[in-house]
């Protein structure tokens, strides 16, 4: 912090205290909460002394940066289980999501440490090197001068919607935690933003990629030194070196001042605080593409570099964070996305999968982005199960969990010669083990007569003790 700013802040704090004495309240103590809103001339024009005195008056923060109504309480929550000990991992409140854009404040974060770099953009650089004709180093100022694009894309953590998160959630509940729900705790590792930055292809063409190159490997300037290999063809296709998110600079927990956006690929590929991109001729087998983010099958072999997210949809209202007050009309609403392209169809069933109706899709539909779907529903008050399934522009259909399990090589009845059948009692353990990544299954919700809504997937699979 430069000393001028801190002096001013100290001064304002002092005057706030004085003003507080004078009017018997603390006028802008609330505004102080946001460290980087520095009241300046505008506050004088806006009449600071009158702000925030009563609860109904806006604070300086509300006016200079913006806050929300005190009646709105939707927040990210910490992830469940031991994963919360690994770092700043927070989950998007999907149950409150509206439209397709996630406010940056509510974007999920998976940060494998508790320190959050506060990188000075004046010193941050991006170096592109390796199998290139001209290795180059760019400052942030230079990158921002280059032709830019803004695109709407989802991000999703590789492990989102996995059985392991459900298990962790139950354990947290058993320990007395009350803020966890399946919609947020199991599924909340996805968000959608408008990302702005330089197409990586522009930079790569400029440095001159050499013959024989087939991958890039990117490294971030965080304290865990995250590094990830990505196919060069993907880099040339649609990757963005992004500095903007939803109309403002990236948030710190999203990799300020610069990150990769790899549309449709698992979250782990979207290297934050990106400082270097090396052009190479093979993947680099970094720790985070071997020890995790591989998909271990029952035969002990793992598939790797399976980065594309499958077609996926989820009803966000009503879900297990809600309770319907009574029979009558409700708009069922949810999100659908596919790593391969655009969502072309979402079907909703309100009778446990017996019949399906096409939901309307919010326009325009962006490729590799959340698509909001909606369907009017008259609930007759009887217990039922509701669910959605989507199809992408290539005709790929979202699977059920059991269809997904079969793809992973799990089958309750008979699995191919490599393995004996898996008893139902062991299924949950196998799903936790094998299905640690890439879970794009259909999520059914049970609506009970009293209007409460419960998960009707994981709870039916988890036969054994948690």
């Amino acid at each position, binding site marked *: 912090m430069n000393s001028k700013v801190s002096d001013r802040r100290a001064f304002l704090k002092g005057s706030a205290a004085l003003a507080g004495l004078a009017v018997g309240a603390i006028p802008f103590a609330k505004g102080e909460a946001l460290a980087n809103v520095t009241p300046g001339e505008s506050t004088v024009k806006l009449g600071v002394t009158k702000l925030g005195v009563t609860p109904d008056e806006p604070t300086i923060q509300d006016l200079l940066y913006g806050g929300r109504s005190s009646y709105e309480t939707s927040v990210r929550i910490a992830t469940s289980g031991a994963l919360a000990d690994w770092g700043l991992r927070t989950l998007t409140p999907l149950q409150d999501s509206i439209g397709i854009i996630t406010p940056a404040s509510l974007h999920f974060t998976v940060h494998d440490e508790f320190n959050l770099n506060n990188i000075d953009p004046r010193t941050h650089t991006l170096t592109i090197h390796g199998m290139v004709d001209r290795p180059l180093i760019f400052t942030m100022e230079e990158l921002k001068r280059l032709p830019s694009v803004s695109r709407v894309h989802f991000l999703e953590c590789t492990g989102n919607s996995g059985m392991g998160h459900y298990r962790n959630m139950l354990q947290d509940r058993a320990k007395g935690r009350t803020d966890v729900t399946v919609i947020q705790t199991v599924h909340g590792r996805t968000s959608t933003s408008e990302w702005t930055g330089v197409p990586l292809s522009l930079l790569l063409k400029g440095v001159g990629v050499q013959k024989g190159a087939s991958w890039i490997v990117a490294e971030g300037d965080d304290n*865990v030194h995250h590094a990830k290999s990505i196919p060069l063809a993907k880099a040339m296709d649609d990757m963005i070196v992004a500095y903007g998110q939803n109309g403002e600079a990236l948030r710190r927990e999203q990799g300020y001042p610069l990150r990769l956006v790899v549309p449709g690929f698992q979250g782990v590929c979207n290297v934050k605080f990106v400082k270097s991109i090396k052009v190479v001729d093979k993947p680099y087998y970094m720790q985070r593409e071997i020890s995790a983010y591989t998909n271990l099958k029952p035969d002990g072999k793992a598939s790797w570099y399976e980065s594309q997210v499958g077609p996926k949809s989820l009803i966000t209202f009503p879900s297990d964070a809600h309770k319907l007050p009574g029979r009558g009309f409700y708009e069922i609403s949810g999100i659908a996305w596919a790593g391969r392209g655009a969502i072309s169809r979402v079907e909703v069933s309100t009778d446990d999968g017996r019949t399906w109706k096409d939901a309307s899709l919010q326009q325009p539909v962006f490729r590799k982005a959340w698509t909001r779907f909606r369907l009017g529903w008259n609930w007759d008050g009887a217990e039922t199960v509701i669910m959605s399934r989507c199809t992408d522009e290539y005709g790929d259909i979202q699977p059920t969990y059991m269809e997904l399990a079969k793809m992973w090589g799990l089958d309750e009845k008979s699995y191919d010669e490599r393995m004996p059948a898996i008893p139902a009692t062991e299924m949950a353990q196998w799903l936790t083990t094998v299905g640690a990544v890439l879970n794009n299954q259909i999520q059914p919700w049970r609506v009970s007569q009293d209007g409460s809504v419960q998960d009707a997937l994981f709870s039916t699979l988890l036969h054994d003790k948690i």
Partner: protein
Amino acid sequence: MRCSALYCMTKSNFLLSVMALLACGTAMAQLPTYNVGRTPTEAELRAVDDLVGSDGKELPPGSGTAKEGAPIYAAQCAVCHGQNGEGVNRYPRLVGGVGSLNTPHPIKTVGSNMPYATTIWDFINRAMPPFPMERNLSPDNVYALTAFILSKNGIIKETNVMNKNSLVEVQMPNRHGFYPDPPHSTLEKDGFWTPRWEQTKPAAK
């Protein structure tokens, strides 16, 4: 300028090699058309060129044995990973687990799971012990620690010297435990990066 020089040598086109050499050396380059960016200095390039791939091109000179690694491990690593690599509390176990990957309780360790020893070297070198202590080990120490972990896993002998050449040659038990091998680097088909969706497309109901 170790790596760039290497690329220059493998280029067949003479003119291009000269250009690349110039770029590596003194000549300043910029992004064509836009004229932004500049050629990094050797020191700047060395600072970011720290990721080690499976053919070990980026490995620095130096060497170490498990014997030399043991006291460093005991002093700097055992508190989290256990005296013998068994793992303490939530910290990862580094030893054992071979034969467990096809059971419902797989034990993934660097010994049972990693296909290349370079990954262990790279991770220790850049990230261990964790923040704020990381990036303080000398290349000799990283070779010695990698040798220690490999030897505890029974993959090499206590006396084997690990260096730029021998590390790349270590045969990891799970070398062929991943598929496709090598990983796909191109689109399988229009927009497809993961063939499994195609192979296993669930039937429409």
